[in-house]
């Protein structure tokens, strides 16, 4: 374990370096954008003298590395991620982002639960039926759903469940309101609005989970203790749930990090098409209305989440499978 904790410390020390590089790249890109925040702020009224004064007040006339230094100073000392210029003028970016993260997390968590539970059942089923037609059929049909991008599958789901059958509510987001400080959010998880986004987000992740579970289950099925369990006359159901599943499901921890990024990318399309006020819709709005500070803040927040999720995944990987040598992975 000595080596592992050393590895964990080295990886954690690497985090600020990566985040620093990410912030520099993202910041540089935003400063190259057409029109600075001042001209975006006032698209119709153009007075160069006023613009110059506001630029000077906000330090926008300084070279961009000075601006970056000031931005980082404010971020590190005050936790200030800048403020929105166009979407919610004057509101701190963080106050816009985090209520929306709470909204996005709801379909995300439900999709994760659906994707993993269906994937586990399909994977174990396929492994038990290895050699019959049901194995390739079960895996193949979900591979199809994995290949279909969310922005292709979702319109069909809307067409079917909303337009033709009329089972689900049309656009938007609902549920009881909760006050979380800067603004109210709605708990769509308690309403029918959760179904479509959760379904669309979970479809692509089932195949990945199912394939991994199938592979691990197959290797566990060949173990001596499974033969022993069967030989002493345990019912097949008990063998599968107690002896096989327990050992076959451990490696699933490693897919969690990957699922996070898939879910996030999917949420951009789901929230744009369905009109859910979450983080994906915010990114879309911020990009189209040139709210650079909000995009920058969004990128930084998401990058932090990604880096931490990746490290947890890597550590989980080495903990679960001691054969993975962390020394090798470091290089």
């Amino acid at each position, binding site marked *: 374990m000595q080596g592992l904790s050393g590895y964990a410390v080295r990886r954690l020390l690497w985090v600020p370096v990566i985040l620093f590089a990410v912030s520099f790249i993202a910041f540089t*890109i935003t400063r190259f954008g057409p029109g600075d925040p001042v001209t975006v702020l006032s698209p119709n009224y153009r007075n160069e003298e006023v613009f110059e004064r506001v630029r000077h007040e906000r330090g926008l006339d300084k070279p961009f590395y000075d601006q970056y230094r000031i931005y980082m100073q404010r971020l590190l000392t005050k936790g200030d991620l800048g403020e929105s210029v166009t979407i919610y003028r004057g509101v701190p970016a963080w106050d816009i982002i985090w209520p929306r993260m709470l909204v996005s997390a709801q379909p995300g968590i439900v999709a994760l639960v659906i994707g993993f539970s269906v994937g586990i059942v399909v994977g174990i089923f396929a492994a038990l039926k290895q050699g019959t037609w049901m194995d390739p059929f079960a895996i193949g049909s979900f591979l199809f759903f994995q290949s279909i991008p969310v922005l292709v599958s979702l319109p069909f789901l809307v067409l079917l469940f909303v337009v033709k059958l009329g089972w689900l509510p049309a656009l938007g987001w609902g549920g009881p309101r909760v006050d979380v400080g800067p603004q109210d959010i709605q708990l769509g998880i308690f309403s029918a609005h959760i179904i479509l986004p959760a379904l669309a987000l979970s479809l692509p992740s089932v195949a990945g989970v199912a394939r991994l579970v199938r592979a691990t289950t197959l290797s566990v099925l060949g173990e001596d203790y499974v033969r022993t369990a069967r030989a002493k006359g345990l019912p097949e159901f008990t063998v599968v749930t107690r002896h096989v599943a327990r050992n076959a499901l451990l490696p699933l921890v490693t897919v969690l990090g990957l699922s996070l990024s898939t879910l996030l990318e999917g949420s951009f399309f789901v929230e744009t098409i369905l009109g859910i006020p979450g983080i994906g819709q915010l990114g879309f709005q911020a*990009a189209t209305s040139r709210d650079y500070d909000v*995009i920058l803040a969004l990128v930084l927040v998401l990058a932090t989440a990604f880096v931490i999720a990746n490290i947890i995944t890597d550590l989980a990987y080495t903990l679960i499978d001691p054969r993975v040598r962390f020394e090798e992975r470091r290089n």
Partner: protein
Amino acid sequence: MQEAAQEITVDLAHREGVPASPWRVAWRRLRGKKLAMIALAAIALFYVVGLAAPAIAPYDYRDQDLDNTSQGSAWAHPFGTDRLGRDQLSRVVWSARTTIIVTAATVLTGSIALSVGLGMISGYAGGKVDTAIMRTGEVFASLPGLPMLILINATMRAKVVRGVDWLESHSSSAALRAGLERHAGPEFAFLVVLGLLALAGAAGVAAWLSAGEGRRNGLWLAPAIVAALVSGLLWAVQGIYATTGAADYFLIFGALSLFFWVGGARVIRSQVLALRETEYVLAARSMGASTWRILMSHLLPNISPLIIVGVSASLGAIAGSEIALTFLGVGVHDPTPSFGALIFDAAGQSTLRNYPHLIIFPAVVVGALIFAFNLLGDALNDVFTPRAR
């Protein structure tokens, strides 16, 4: 019985004469997979239709039939028309062309030039060069992909459009720097200079590598070839698309390449690390083969299956990314057709309710294409790395 015996003799004769090359073996294995061959045929059809779009599409993608807007399937418009009376079938055919250009350009630069080049240099050189390349890759890999792509495409577009406009009006390269500064702003010129510096740096690494061998050789050619390829591609794109969307194509494939090289470079690096210690490389080195020769004629053939598997796996993802970016409004811009724009136009709630035919055709084509890419990628993976089964 007799026939079977004959076949065996023929097979033996074949084996005695010319040993089957690894490529032939791989192709034979691939041909045995029916699903993969169907996928390959579908992809081939898609490419032929896309490349021959001007000849195949019944209308231009901008042509409007204002008497028949938002119309369903009819003789003149088999897949209907959109809100502006543009023929949906023609828009889909032209969109295929957009997808092909962006995928091909991204694969050439991101999946082949950058990932193979950097992966091989990183694996073979080792030490500080290796650390620098892999750490850079780690930074790119930890950037959240989609938000970063949105950020790049949303902010850089104006510069690239001006740059391409300028390229179109000036063919002389003498005034390149000054012209860039005047027309595209100092930031774009800065980026160009930065790019040139990066190329020079790569050339420097190459020169350092070859100096380590104690002999001058042609490794410096590698960055030069990459630069020539990229600029040639730029000129080709500019020639074909003088006014419609060259800047968009350039921007999208540039941004995508930035993010698609890391995974491939890691795989190739680890393979080169292993191959570097093999006896045949040692033998080649002891016989005085140059670094360039070892990389090109001993290592490259051995990692080419990996390259093919990597490329086939990334094709679907790249096509999907272009469509996704256009859907979000930061990819290809109107009037240049793209599947992303077609789906966005058709996916609105009221459009879905009133004109459901508009979504079906483009969505089915996109779904089938990406599914075909994934099936082929899976099959190629099985063919080239049988151990993975």
